[in-house]
């Protein structure tokens, strides 16, 4: 029997369109053409392949998925799905599709399109980076292993029903169906594009790609047949590429550009911030990101808990936020503040040089020790590594900074006994979806503590691992809050073992013109960066 958790779509829509408190005074308006700039070309608009923070938000708007999020929040809502249900054992998910939703080529979206799209994202021939997200669907290994191209665990018994059979309970599964890799695409358009679907996208989202002139611009127009009435607000957005961030900012100040997607170059940040209209132009938002130093639990003397705790007290995190011009806040736990499960009351290890020295002496290192700190070699990471090095020196720990290319740092982190300490800046870790489990498995769980893995602390606590598995089996959507709290406790308990020094939560900066309306959290939406569906032009 299914325990149904039905939700009326109209209710969800009303919820999604409810103005957020921070912009309650000016109401969203229909209409307007805007110009957005980026430095780099748009890589691809194929949802099975695109995986950078620029194309991520465009793909979100070109396609639709079974699930989506309320704009500006991490709250899941049904999208292409009208209703869904989860079985008691958490192994079967059943979705009923909305009727009458059409791809922009005119054909109706049916259940077999959902099956096709996910199978395509998992198929190794697609070379998609997102295959691993679908690992809990039955038959996943057979597809990635090349034995077959169809996923046994997805059934489409009729045009409006999709059933997923999982091989293990996966409480993040609804989030998985909301990420870009689960976007629904029409197979005939993929086939007709002949390997170039990324340049000729067809979906059923809020916008349609009208023109793409390579190296110059992309024009997106509103999809008049989008299945939610009065969405999106703007009629059109043109993305101009190849625009230097500095030039884009000058153009924004002159009113030629509405959103400078690359933000504000560090050299100009204070000037803009202190200008008359500055505060209205800067959108400074939190992301689901944590920057941390890994302390390798398999390397001496970092295998000693007291040493790891002492190092946690040795770093002046506020100074590091100043290196980043204040575009970061100090962190004290693995989860970022926007993530469900983040514990506001947790204080972690406060900055205390004397206490750190005392702990080191207690651990048998009264005069400190020598170690190595790895970092990537692109600015500002080496500067941050140097600040860490100075802080460590203040407690007697002499760390040699090794600033290397990203791939080399990742390789060193994934080699057992190799890198004592790694500063994660420029590599890890931004959550792919707003669920706390995304911060555990690969980077703190036993499964990540393997050669080539991302658990660079080589931290493996069997007890915590068991609790993580239990938390991820809580698939009942009604228990979301309980599950988040369980996860939150797991992360603060991990800090007792101190495998990381959580350092900072970086913020993203977007610059927008004065005529653009909408709260900051739809310009830096936690699940899609710029939310083109929700932004609007003030009249």
């Amino acid at each position, binding site marked *: 029997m299914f325990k149904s958790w039905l939700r009326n779509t109209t209710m969800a829509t009303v919820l999604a369109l409810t103005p957020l408190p921070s912009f309650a005074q000016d109401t969203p308006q229909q209409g307007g053409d805007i110009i957005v700039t980026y430095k780099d*070309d748009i890589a691809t608009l194929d949802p099975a392949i695109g995986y950078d923070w620029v194309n991520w938000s465009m793909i979100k708007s070109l396609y639709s998925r079974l699930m989506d999020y309320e704009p500006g929040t991490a709250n899941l809502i049904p999208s292409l799905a009208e209703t869904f249900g989860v079985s008691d054992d958490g192994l079967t998910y059943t979705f009923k599709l909305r009727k009458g939703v059409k791809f922009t080529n005119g054909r109706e979206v049916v259940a077999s399109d959902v099956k096709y799209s996910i199978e395509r994202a998992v198929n190794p021939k697609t*070379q998609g980076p997102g*295959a*691993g997200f679908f690992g809990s669907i039955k038959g996943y290994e057979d597809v990635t292993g090349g034995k077959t191209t169809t996923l046994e665990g997805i059934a489409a018994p009729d045009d409006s029903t999709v059933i997923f059979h999982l091989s293990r309970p996966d409480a993040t599964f609804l989030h998985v169906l909301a990420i870009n890799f689960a976007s629904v695409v029409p197979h005939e358009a993929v086939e007709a594009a002949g390997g170039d679907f990324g*340049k000729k996208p067809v979906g059923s989202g809020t916008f349609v790609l009208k023109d793409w002139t390579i190296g*110059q611009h992309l024009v997106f127009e509103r999809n008049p047949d989008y299945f939610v009435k009065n969405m999106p607000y703007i009629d059109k957005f043109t993305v101009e590429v190849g625009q230097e961030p500095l*030039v884009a900012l000058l*153009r924004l100040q002159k009113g030629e550009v509405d959103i400078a997607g690359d933000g504000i170059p560090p050299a100009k940040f204070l000037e803009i911030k202190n200008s008359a209209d500055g505060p209205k132009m800067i959108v400074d938002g939190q992301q689901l990101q944590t920057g941390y130093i890994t302390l390798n639990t398999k390397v001496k003397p970092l295998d000693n808990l007291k040493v790891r705790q002492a190092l946690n007290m040795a770093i002046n995190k506020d100074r590091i936020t100043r290196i980043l011009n204040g575009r970061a806040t100090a962190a004290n736990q693995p989860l970022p503040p926007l993530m469900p499960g983040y514990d506001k009351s947790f204080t972690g290890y406060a900055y205390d040089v004397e206490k750190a020295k005392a702990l080191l002496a207690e651990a048998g290192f009264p005069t400190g020790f020598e170690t190595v700190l790895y970092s990537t070699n692109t600015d500002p990471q080496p500067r941050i590594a140097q600040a860490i090095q100075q802080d460590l020196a203040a407690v007697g720990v002499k760390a040699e900074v090794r600033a290397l*290319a990203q791939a080399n740092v990742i390789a060193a982190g994934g080699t057992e006994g190799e890198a004592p300490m790694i500063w994660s800046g420029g590599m890890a870790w931004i959550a792919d979806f707003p669920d706390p489990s995304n911060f555990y498995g690969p980077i703190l769980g036993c499964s990540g503590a393997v050669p080539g893995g991302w658990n660079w602390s080589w931290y493996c606590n069997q007890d915590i691992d068991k609790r993580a598995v239990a938390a991820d089996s809580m698939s009942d959507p009604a228990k979301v809050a309980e599950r988040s709290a369980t996860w939150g406790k797991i992360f603060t308990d991990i800090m007792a073992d101190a495998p990381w020094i959580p350092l900072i939560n970086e913020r993203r900066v977007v610059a927008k013109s004065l005529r653009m309306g909408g709260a900051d959290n739809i310009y830096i939406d936690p699940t899609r960066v710029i939310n083109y569906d929700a932004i609007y032009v003030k009249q």
Partner: protein
Amino acid sequence: MALLILRRLVQTALILLGVAAITFLLLYALPADPARMIAGRSATAQTVANIRRELGLDQPLLVQFWTYLQGIVHGDLGRSYAQKTDVGSLIAARIPATLLLMAAGILVEVVLGLTLGIIAALRRGGAVDRVVMMASFVGVSAPQFVVALLLLYVFAVMLGWFPMSGFGTPAHVVLPAATLGILGAGWYARMVRSAMIDVLNQDYVRTARAKGLSSARIILRHALPNAMLPIIAMIGIDIGQFMGGVVVVEAVYGWPGIGQLAWQAIQQVDIPIIMGVTLVSALAIVLGNLIADIIAPLIDPRIRAR
């Protein structure tokens, strides 16, 4: 002549093969794993391995190079890692913009360089000569990204005469072409000046003057064509120079040419695009020199006779 062209074409093929080999080896020695980069953060080791196999990166280097060469022969430059599309079509779509910019840049440097050089030669030793020579020295020495930002700030931001960035109207080409041309103009002014001074001292110029020809006619008909010869050789070489310059200029002005493509590709370690752009640039440089070699004898009978 036919023999010259044939010989040069064979040389061109050899040079391109050499360039391809060197670039290929250098790029694959880079400490970056393309499969890892394509796969993204959360990819499993298996996904990375799958991608590596699909791209043929698990093959020995020589096999990979051979496959790449076979592709080139068939006009296939491979697929971009970052943009997931055919490199040949990406480059082809951007070549017209770069050609336009280079033509405009050459026009700026030739017109500016010739004018200043002639003026300086005629006023040799005077104040004008010294000012022109000083200015050309600054033009030759100033780094292009500084010139680009300076022109952008003065003429686009402060004065608002030209658009700051982009492509499409004649106004858009002015600042990028000026940035590109200023460097060459400095060289040209200096070369034209010394060549003109040399020619103006020749017997036939004195004869022309003795015949009572106007000085304008003497300079334009008799002196200038002879002073032009080294300039024409320079233009061929300039195409190579410009291939380097367009990278900076296109990046600053948002010009949709292959320089901008190269700039992005380098930052993203998009090896197939870097390879493709390098090969196309090498081809352009070799062709530029070839054209200069073909044109020189047409203008100067002395070379033809040899």
